């Protein structure tokens, strides 16, 4: 059975390779860094998932996390354009507008991603993955911190292909 792969510090890394297996053991997390574990894909669809496709989807998804964090912290919905589309983009943009209106900004800092691709639709137009993610949420009101909380959530993510990358269409925690 294929073993999960660990990738460290990907959120600060410019290039993320889901296929690059790395030695286990380093669980320490620095500011802005997260451990990433990629479980072998467990697909329910008929379409085979090429390794390059898997790598690209995971790389693009992890980049989208960075983008989302930056957009929510800076209250800049325009940052979402490259990585999000459809419902996910609409909802995140609306959240940012709500934050702006309320004088709030939020800092999301991922500590660990545990990823598994669970569906690759037969026509190749969507990939669904599960991300068991641990992150800290810090909430600021008028620049003053009002709360910092650790969160564990199971995110279900739907990615769809754009011109040169996969974009997040659904990002939903359970």
């Amino acid at each position: 059975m294929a073993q999960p792969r660990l990738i460290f510090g990907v959120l600060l890394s410019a290039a993320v390779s889901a296929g690059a297996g790395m030695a286990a053991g380093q669980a320490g997390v620095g500011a802005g860094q997260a451990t990433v574990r990629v479980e072998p894909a467990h697909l329910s669809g008929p379409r085979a998932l090429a390794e390059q496709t898997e790598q690209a989807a995971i790389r693009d998804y992890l980049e989208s996390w960075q983008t989302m964090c930056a957009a929510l912290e800076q209250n800049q919905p325009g940052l979402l354009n490259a990585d999000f589309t459809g419902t996910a983009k609409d909802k995140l943009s609306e959240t940012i507008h709500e934050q702006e209106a309320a004088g709030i900004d939020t800092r999301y800092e991922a500590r660990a991603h545990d990823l598994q691709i669970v569906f690759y639709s037969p026509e190749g137009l969507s990939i669904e993955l599960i991300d068991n993610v641990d992150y800290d949420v810090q909430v600021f009101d008028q620049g003053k911190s009002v709360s910092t909380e650790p969160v564990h959530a199971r995110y279900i993510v739907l990615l769809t292909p754009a011109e040169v990358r996969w974009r997040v269409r659904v990002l939903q925690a359970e």
Partner: protein
Amino acid sequence: MNKSGRLLAVILGAVTVALIVIGTLDPSSTALAYAGGQGLVPSSSTPELAVRDLAAEIGMREWGRAYGSLANKAEFTEQNFQNDLTGYYLSLRTYATLDHFQVRPLHATANDAEMRLVLYWSTVVGTSVSTRDLHVVRDGDHWDVDWPVAKKPDVPPQVIPVNYLRWDVIYPGAGDDWGEQNVEAPHVRIVDMHPVQRAEGVVILGELLNEDIVPAYVSVNATLLDKEQHPIASAGSFDKISHILLPKQVTPFFIIFPNAQLSDVKSIRMTPFSTLVPASADPVIAIDNEHLNPVPDPSLTGQVINQSGQVVNVAHVLGTFYDKSGQVVWVAGEYLDRALLPQTPEAFDIHIPEDLARDISSERTVVATYSERGEQ
């Protein structure tokens, strides 16, 4: 100044004077052209100079002066003369410029001569060569050219019903269309592919089939891969393909990798590309009298006949050549620089490399066309 320096100065001066005299008495055609076609010595003093004068004026598009110098100008108008050279209808020749020309004497007497004028036209798709055999006659102290004008092709009045299919495409509007249905790209398939090593590099030959029921705009890209499956080079078929394919139509393609070595290539990744485009099943082009001519000057000759009622402005004849086993061994083509008029044959002559000619046992010819009125 020492003695040797003085000698050098004298020699240089003598050579300069000699070159000026030679250039004046026998100017090159280019120099003549830049000089406005007029030499210091009357240029029509010999049959060859008369033809050179005329060619230079054609090159400068000095139609009036060129027409005025002709011996037989009473037989046609200046406009006929101009159209004979630039085309009666929009074609590659319409915007071509004369790059250079050659004049060869064929036969001469005291009062007339036969001269061959070869005109090399620069067109948007490369050089187009046309050859005219001219009769030159003496008129006192100078020579005039009889221009063998090709008059406007006479297409008999007729009604040609055009009721072939036309395909139009409606695409969905802009916006996020994920999950919405889109127009399916045509299904195309490479039915033959064969790499060969030539002196100029690696050449990939093949054929592409539109196996769909809709027309397709097609092209083919190839990537050479080394033993580690790393790309060596990528190239496309460019114009060595018939880009518009009707349903079940086949086109050859030809991709060249200059300076590449086939021995360095482990595998080749072929990427056919197709997109749905509006198209018409008209015009139908027949290819008649296709003939493979053997060495020493191997070629494929024949005529194309536009069977439809509309003028085809540009025609590109593509020949696919096969060996006895049916494998593609060469692809070559020729642009016709004249418009194809309805029901009017136009000859083509596609050169075949001599070293391949002996291997060729059959061929297949297709014609890609462009009409000002239509898409194809």
